[in-house]
């Protein structure tokens, strides 16, 4: 199918290293000795445990419920016993622990009773949306934004185009590729289901042009008037705004959401998950994860959520020699994992084991402009860097700091090895903290609208940290009362903000382009 494509500014042709892991069919990963299920695996508010320590649970059983609208529940990914609810390491840029429900599997992997609606092809939008929410489905491409919120936006607005994103652009990662090849029918059925639910005029399933087998697999099972598209393999072709532009030539206005221009986007894995909940009643309890890099046999695995990454590395063959770095995610946007107990969560697409990614010493910016040429948003990274470093956050925002999608292209080409994205993350979190302290975002409100979700996340994060101080043994501090008040206030603010945001636009906010968070303290040897 040939169609007009648009070319976004910048981007990088990166060595893909896809063949390393996409040759073998995926296999189910072993059930680990312990599953660590964080209460927050999504953007938004952390969920609330509904089980007690010692309780027996079945696979797919609800163990934590959604806290508010921008939140999703968590389910047990296998049958077993809840042995703890406490703080454990998770993949986080600041290496903080987070609240997890720990399950000791019984090895039987017994499902809870799965309820399938009688006529699942005739479900109304509300019913489908409720199922998506109750299944705990979030953007599986990495953003982790609750899917029901997006679907609901689609239901409430006119949707011109639904895009199902299979453009897996980051090097090494092939989980979507494998998923499409092995479950093309589910992807297409899910796409068609979402398309029907949001009443999209067009539905496009897009892959990168080097994913030939995936494309062929989709072609075979294509139904209705779903279109297929191949986009050039230029990183970050799968970025939300980049893919929308590539396929439609439309730009999502700064500070706005795709729905504003009549577009809804979901990841291919999300579409498949939606299909599985509607047709089999399966909540989200596992996902495809690429385990690659210098492991002995790199491949894709179907992994139970909560499985420690170390288990996966062992199952794919731990490389000999000194321990290597383990990165959750890809080489461009991933987070280094410091503790191998860190679990796979809903947004985990890849475990990359390598230490070939070291850069030389950081030098001063020589203003070469290479970063400017590759930025897919057409920002001026070196100027952003300059002002972020000088903590001149106002100017940084004038230069559209918040339109940065954290793709890392700029840092990738920087001859001075400057970890630019870390500086941007630092600036963003400082600004968010400032806004938080001021309690209002009246200045440059436009720029913030789409960040409501992000801010909500930050607030929730902060609240959670404080909560940990309240609940966690190791973190108990003296000023508990004060903290509790603070948490309460933060939650109130979040609610208020969300309410106003909804009033303003008549729908809740999303920012699916939020990249993974990063360390917030860039240092410099200049």
């Amino acid at each position, binding site marked *: 199918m040939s169609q007009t494509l648009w070319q*976004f*500014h910048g981007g990088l042709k*990166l*060595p893909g*290293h896809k063949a390393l892991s996409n040759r073998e069919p995926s296999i189910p990963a072993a059930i680990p000795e312990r599953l660590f299920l964080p209460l927050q695996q999504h953007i938004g508010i952390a969920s609330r445990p509904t089980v007690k320590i010692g309780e027996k649970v079945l696979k797919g059983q609800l163990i934590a419920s959604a806290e508010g609208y921008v939140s999703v529940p968590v389910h047990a990914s296998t049958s077993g016993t809840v042995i703890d609810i406490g703080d454990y390491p998770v993949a986080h840029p600041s290496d903080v622990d987070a609240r997890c429900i720990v399950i000791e599997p019984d090895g039987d992997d017994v499902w809870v009773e799965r309820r399938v609606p009688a006529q699942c092809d005739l479900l109304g939008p509300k019913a489908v949306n409720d199922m998506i929410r109750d299944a705990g489905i979030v953007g599986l491409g990495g953003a982790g934004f609750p899917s029901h919120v997006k679907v609901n936006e689609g239901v409430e607005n006119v949707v011109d185009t639904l895009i199902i994103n299979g453009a897996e652009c980051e*090097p090494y990662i092939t989980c979507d590729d494998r998923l499409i090849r092995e479950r093309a029918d589910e992807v297409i059925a899910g796409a068609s289901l979402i398309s029907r639910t949001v009443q999209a005029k067009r539905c496009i399933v897009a892959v990168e042009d080097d994913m030939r087998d995936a494309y062929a697999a989709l072609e075979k099972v294509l139904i209705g008037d779903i279109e297929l598209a191949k986009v050039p393999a230029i990183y970050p072709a799968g970025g939300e*705004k*980049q893919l929308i532009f590539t396929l439609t030539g439309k730009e*999502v*206005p*700064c500070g*706005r959401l795709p729905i504003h221009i009549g577009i809804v986007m979901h990841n291919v894995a999300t579409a498949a998950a939606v299909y599985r909940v509607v047709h089999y009643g399966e909540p989200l309890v596992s996902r495809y994860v690429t385990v690659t890099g210098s492991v002995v046999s790199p491949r894709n695995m179907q992994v139970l959520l909560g499985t420690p990454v170390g288990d996966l590395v062992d199952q794919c063959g731990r490389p000999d020699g000194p321990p290597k*770095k383990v*990165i959750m*995610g890809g*080489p*461009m946007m*991933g987070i*280094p994992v410091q503790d191998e107990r860190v679990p796979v969560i809903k947004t985990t697409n890849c475990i990359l084991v390598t230490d070939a*990614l*070291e*850069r*030389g*010493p*950081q*030098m*001063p*910016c*020589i*203003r*070469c*402009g*290479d970063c*400017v*040429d590759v930025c*897919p*948003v*057409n*920002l*001026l990274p*070196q*100027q952003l860097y300059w002002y972020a470093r000088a903590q001149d956050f106002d100017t940084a925002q004038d*230069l559209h700091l918040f*339109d940065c999608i954290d793709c*890392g292209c700029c*840092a*990738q*080409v*920087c*001859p*001075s*090895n400057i*970890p*630019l*994205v*870390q500086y941007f993350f630092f600036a963003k979190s400082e600004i968010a903290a400032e806004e938080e302290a001021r309690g209002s975002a009246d200045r440059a409100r436009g720029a913030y609208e789409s960040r409501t979700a992000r801010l909500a996340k930050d607030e929730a994060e902060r609240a959670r940290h404080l909560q940990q101080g309240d609940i966690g043994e190791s973190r108990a501090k003296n000023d508990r009362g004060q903290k509790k008040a603070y948490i309460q206030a933060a939650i109130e603010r979040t609610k208020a903000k969300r309410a106003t945001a909804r009033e303003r636009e008549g729908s809740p906010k999303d920012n699916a382009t939020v990249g*993974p968070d*990063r*360390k917030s303290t860039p240092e410099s*040897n200049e």
Partner: protein
Amino acid sequence: MTSSMPGFAPDSEPHSVSSIMRQVLYALVPGIALYVWFFGFGIVINCLLATSVALVSEGIMLRLRKRPVTPFLTDGSAVVTAVLLALAMPPYAPWWVTSIAAIFAIVIAKHLYGGLGYNPFNPAMAGYALVLISFPAEMTTWPLPHMLSEMRPGFIDSAMIIFADQPTGALKLDALTGATPLAHVKSELGNMRMVSEAVGAPIFGMLGGKGWEWLSLGYLLGGVWLLYKKIIKWQIPVSMLAGLFIMAVVFYLSDPEIYLSPVFHLFSGATMLGAFFIATDPVTAATTPLGRIIFGAGIGILTYVIRAWAAYPDGLAFAVLLMNAAAPTIDHYTQPRILGEGRQ
């Protein structure tokens, strides 16, 4: 900071500061080789001299400023500054003139402004401008190409001229030197002669001055290689040459007896060296894509203005310094439209 964090290279080797500088030096090789062929070994000695002085100055400044010495000393930026400075200066300028220029370039123009990446003015051009203003006599004594002077000073002779101010035995300094083509035309025009009369002199070749035109071609070749290797971007060289060329065309067409031909402008003086090696210094240039075009065009136009109407035969150094000063403003007003900006 060790980069255990994202944004790191999946084994596609990006440039590093030192690899960029190294390639710039490689790209200068054809120009320097032709320089030696036409004008003798002076340029080599000058390059070595300027480089030594620059490196010593750099080391001392890094120590004084308590900066890590090794990574910065080996980044190659001081060497590039020194070599460009030497290439801009008369090749037989006395050693102390070159040394002063190099010290000024590194100590004042670079380090007192914060070192690599922070200096607003091109250090080589700042050093050059300082000595041009301070020592006009030394800075306007240029050699003749060997076909005119009938001699090509070797290594020893060159060293004698530079360090002791006189060549050995048979060589006569006077016979070796003469006006550069640009300076010649300027003084002839000052004497109420026509361009057509001035360019009849034996120092003129096909495109520019004899010898000099070949140097320009050498720099052009190196510059094209840098473009090909993506070390420099096209905007500045192209817009600078275009700016100079268009100015020259307009005035040449208005009166070819007063104004030199556009081709002559392109292949004379420091045009090619400036377009590909000096104006393209990233630290001191504009950095937005449109900004680079304006920056380059500004240098081309100012170079022409100074050549045509100011007291100096060549104006590149001043044009570069003036545009350096304008670069931040240019950047400010030429920010690209980002994805989604201004869309409703």
